[in-house]
């Protein structure tokens, strides 16, 4: 499987609209362990939300932080235009808090810092959920031509979307869901806990740990697809060389088809009052609020209950139009959202289990003055969850993380 990540559980993300967890989730329900589902990357430089009709969020490349300076006004509720706010009344908070890394602080840190200043009431734009990414200094220092050569396409894209010219006014950015580090558990050969089922790329959990760094998703695509899989999958296939093509009247096919048909029939027969997107947006909001950039045991416990209730409501009150044997976009969406409603709970369970902060997983209870506080003694493991039905709790399998050549240490960006 190379079926990508599950970031669209949040409804709003930088993922393409078609990305979904269905294939990975079906594998999980059929025995494949799902590892570290709570590790999601919230990318700091995305175009902020403008309204409740918003369907997706657009990523402005990380590279912009090479020359752009991130700031908010020092005073709460400062409504002046950015160009009217003098330098001494601006808070270049990344440069202030992380003088050695400044605007290039890692994504999880930059995202949390943006949330923090917005939560303090110092966010900018109509919603107050945005910070400035300012190129005025870079344009003064390098000239507009150089900035245009470096970032022209991104500036055009920004202008296209927001109708504002970033050469003249600072960009407004806010964090958005971008990548899911968790995924199907795989061994070093990229095989899941189901013999013969291999998972590569974003749909597996490997490579990134709790905190993906810039460009490493591309690296994983290459590593998995180019350097690992060609040398490992053959070991499995070698034993299958005399296995003939499996006919589609095999009992497993028949059963799978029957299950799918039952599910579609059920989805189409509910004929409730709420649309699929309605459920998806509510789910996304729950996950974003309680299992997003900052998580607490209390919030997660509440969120788990909310997701369970929402799932129950979905199967009672969703409205899906059209028929089964036709090109039906509504049914397709309903099928995806039904899976997200199950995955969402597992993300929360995982986040609740991990009583530490690390990378993209920030538990408010575990911090040193705003910095993530790991607990290597108790949590230096991969949490691989086994599906046991939706009623009870999934079973946790721990894969211990052993470091032989390096010593675990806390990385400081200050």
């Amino acid at each position, binding site marked *: 499987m190379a079926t990508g990540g599950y970031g669209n559980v949040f409804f709003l993300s930088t993922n*393409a*609209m*078609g990305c979904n967890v269905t294939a990975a989730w079906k594998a999980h329900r059929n025995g494949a362990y799902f590892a570290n589902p709570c590790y999601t990357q919230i990318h700091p430089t995305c175009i902020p939300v*403008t*309204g409740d*009709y*918003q*369907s*997706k969020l*657009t*990523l402005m490349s990380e590279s912009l932080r090479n020359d752009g300076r991130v700031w908010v006004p020092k005073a709460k509720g400062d409504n002046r235009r950015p160009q009217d706010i003098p330098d001494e009344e601006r808070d270049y908070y990344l440069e202030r808090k992380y003088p050695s890394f400044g605007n290039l602080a890692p994504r999880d840190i930059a995202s949390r810092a943006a949330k923090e200043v917005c939560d303090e009431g110092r966010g900018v734009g109509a919603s107050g959920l945005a910070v400035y990414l300012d190129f005025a200094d870079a344009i003064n220092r390098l000239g507009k031509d150089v900035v245009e050569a470096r970032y022209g396409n991104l500036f055009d*894209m920004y202008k*296209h*979307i*927001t*109708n504002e010219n970033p050469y003249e006014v600072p960009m407004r950015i806010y964090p958005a869901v971008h990548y899911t580090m968790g995924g199907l558990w795989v061994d070093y050969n990229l095989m899941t806990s189901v013999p013969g089922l291999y998972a590569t790329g974003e749909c597996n959990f490997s490579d990134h740990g709790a905190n993906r760094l810039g460009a490493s998703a591309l690296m994983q695509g290459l590593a998995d697809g*180019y350097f690992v899989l*060609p040398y490992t999958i053959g070991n499995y296939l070698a034993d299958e060389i005399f296995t003939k093509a499996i006919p589609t009247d095999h009992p497993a096919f028949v059963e799978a088809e029957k299950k799918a048909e039952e599910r579609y029939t059920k989805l189409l027969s509910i004929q409730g009052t709420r*649309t*699929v*997107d*309605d459920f998806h947006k509510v789910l996304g909001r729950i996950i974003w609020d309680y299992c997003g950039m900052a998580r607490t045991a209390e919030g997660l416990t509440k969120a788990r209950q909310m997701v369970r209730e929402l799932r129950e409501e979905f199967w009672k009150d969703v*409205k899906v*139009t*059209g028929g089964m044997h*036709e*090109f039906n*976009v*509504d049914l397709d969406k309903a099928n995806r959202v039904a899976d997200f409603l199950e995955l969402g709970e597992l993300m929360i369970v995982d986040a609740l289990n991990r009583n530490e902060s690390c990378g993209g997983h920030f538990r408010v209870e575990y911090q040193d003055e705003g910095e993530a506080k790991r607990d290597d003694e108790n949590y230096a493991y991969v949490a691989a969850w086994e599906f046991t039905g939706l009623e009870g709790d999934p079973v946790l399998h721990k894969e211990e993380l052993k470091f032989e050549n390096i010593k675990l240490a806390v990385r400081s960006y200050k």
Partner: protein
Amino acid sequence: MKFNLKIWRQKNANAPGKLVDYKIDNVSEDMSLLEMMDVLNEDLVRKNEEPVAFDHDCREGICGMCSMYINGRAHGPVKASTTCQLYMRNFTDGETITIEPFRAAAFPVIRDLAVTRSAFDRIIAKGGFVSVSTGKAQDANNLPVPKEDADKAMDAAACIGCGACAAACPNASAMLFVSAKVAHLSLLPQGQVERKERALAMINQMDEEGFGSCTNIGACEAECPKEISLENIARLNREYIYATVAK
């Protein structure tokens, strides 16, 4: 903002289609056209009507999935833009917006505004790849590529394969698409191994799919969301002749 929409509705490839009128108000100028379609579809579902099927995916102008013909133009009225990158501020309040699928014999309608563009996939499969030996990666500085070639290859590689060129062309020719793919690879060292076979195989497949011939009209270049230049077609013709002669 308020709009009158005329949208092509067609149940499947074999059913007759027609333009259906819809009215929509409370549209924000910051909404994208596809977000307006989402709002319309939500309303339709609530009224127990079937939503309008349309293709979309990344919604940031890079995947090539969205494909509407808006007010008589592929990807609508804004130059160098995909449908998903159209915002309602690009239209006038109260305007009537006509939305149809991409039309070309080789792009049959699946439903409403969604068409199948698998013909492009089959053309790519015929030669839009390079063969590379696995193993140790070779030193990146072994094969220097002149900046001018790299830039031209990059410009051609910007093609997202959306099909606007074929939809805009009165002959439904896919030459701009094929030329971009051939030019991109023939300009780079990696593309040399299959250079001749590629030009011949891709052109052959293009013809088999039923795309029309190029008569140098230039509608493709004018409507291309990625501004792929007609120069690529000249390059494709050269590649084709070279491959035929040198075969």
